[in-house]
């Protein structure tokens, strides 16, 4: 009887631990905070720091993009909130936008963030109702960021200076 109990506990423990390892390798958390946040998200108890999120939004509208990103990262340490990731991506887009060119490196980082946002949103569609933004869906933002990383003959078009920042 005792052996059976030990066997059952052993099987349950092994299966749980294996599932945890598979989850870790699938989600690839970068630090212990992300591990905790991921566990909270899996349990349905994860929530961002709303005060920090709003503070970051203020910074974003004042065009303090780097500071805004830092605040958003602190508000969403697990990178589990689709809306926050969308705003992070948007900040990369706006910071990288210039009249003559779009910064490749920032566009790439923005693409990573917007891809995360799309992955996290239900049905892979994300709409952010914010009147201060001209692109309100994640796919629009993604397309714009992808355009920023592509190189072609269009880069030499002098009329590019007239394109608007969204």
């Amino acid at each position, binding site marked *: 009887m005792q052996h059976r109990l030990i*066997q059952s506990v052993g099987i349950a423990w092994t299966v749980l631990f294996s599932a945890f390892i598979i989850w870790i390798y699938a989600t*690839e958390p970068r630090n212990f905070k992300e591990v905790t946040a991921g566990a909270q998200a899996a349990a349905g108890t994860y929530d961002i720091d709303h005060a920090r999120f709003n503070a970051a939004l203020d910074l974003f509208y004042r065009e303090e993009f780097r500071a805004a990103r830092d605040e958003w990262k602190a508000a969403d340490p697990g990178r589990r909130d689709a809306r926050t990731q969308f705003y992070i991506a948007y900040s990369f887009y706006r910071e990288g936008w210039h009249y003559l060119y779009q910064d490749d490196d920032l566009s790439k980082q923005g693409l990573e963030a917007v891809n995360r946002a799309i992955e996290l949103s239900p049905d892979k569609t994300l709409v952010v109702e914010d009147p201060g933004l001209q692109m309100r869906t994640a796919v629009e933002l993604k397309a714009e960021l992808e355009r920023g990383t592509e190189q072609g003959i269009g880069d030499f078009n002098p009329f590019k200076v007239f394109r608007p920042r969204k």
Partner: protein
Amino acid sequence: MTTRARSRNRALLRYILLPMIFLTVALLGGLRIDAETKAFLFYPPPLITLIFSVMVMLLFVRGRAVEIDKWLRSDQPVLTNGSHALTLLTLYFATAQAFNTVMPERGLLKALFCFFLLWTLWNNQFSNFDARRLLRSLGVLFGTAFFLKYMFLPSLFAPGGGFVKSVAGLFLEVGTLGTIDTLTFAPVTGYVSFFTLLLYVAGLILLTPRPEPEEDARALIRSYRTLPPLEQSAVREAIAGPQPSAALEAREPQKRLDAVEVTGELVTESPSEETQIRQK
């Protein structure tokens, strides 16, 4: 300790502790720490490490470090077979991750490591192994790979190294046409890897060839039968000890040899045929 307590402890080891050890190895085997950001990086086991792991499992079975027919038996309950299968499965993945932790992540060095590990494991398939030798051999294999990956190579490519090291690293890189392509991780990665390997070896030491160890005498006989003839005779002598009858038996051929020698001497002293003819 009573028989019941001993049996309970064995069950705890087999069903809980061993899977936990092997799964911890499986978790940590792919963990690296980024040198700049100190972020976790997880490298899942490459396909080649899964193949290496199959080869090591075959070695375990051949060397009787794992007696598979005793772990999985048709006359055991399903629950027992299931938990034994899980323990062996965790051993398989732990072995794959132990290889993963000592192998470079990419480039020419990864190919070289793969080649030499494959060569060694393939040769081992045809060697005469017992469980202890196999464990020793694996310890040396992992130890050497660990030394090369975490001690020798970083000393060549470390950015803060001296002039001679930098030149040696540069020559190595130029000599291999830039295919070396090493990744540099934070030093703590080496510590994690060392701990992982220690845990793996500890797990192997705790792993008994069969779930319920057989009686000592039978185990001894079984081990004796796996030995080569020369070692079998050494064991026989060691067990028998200095017995008078055995000692006498052992001295018997020597006596006969002495007698032959004595006879020979007598023959040489007797007059030869030529002498006898001359005397006649």
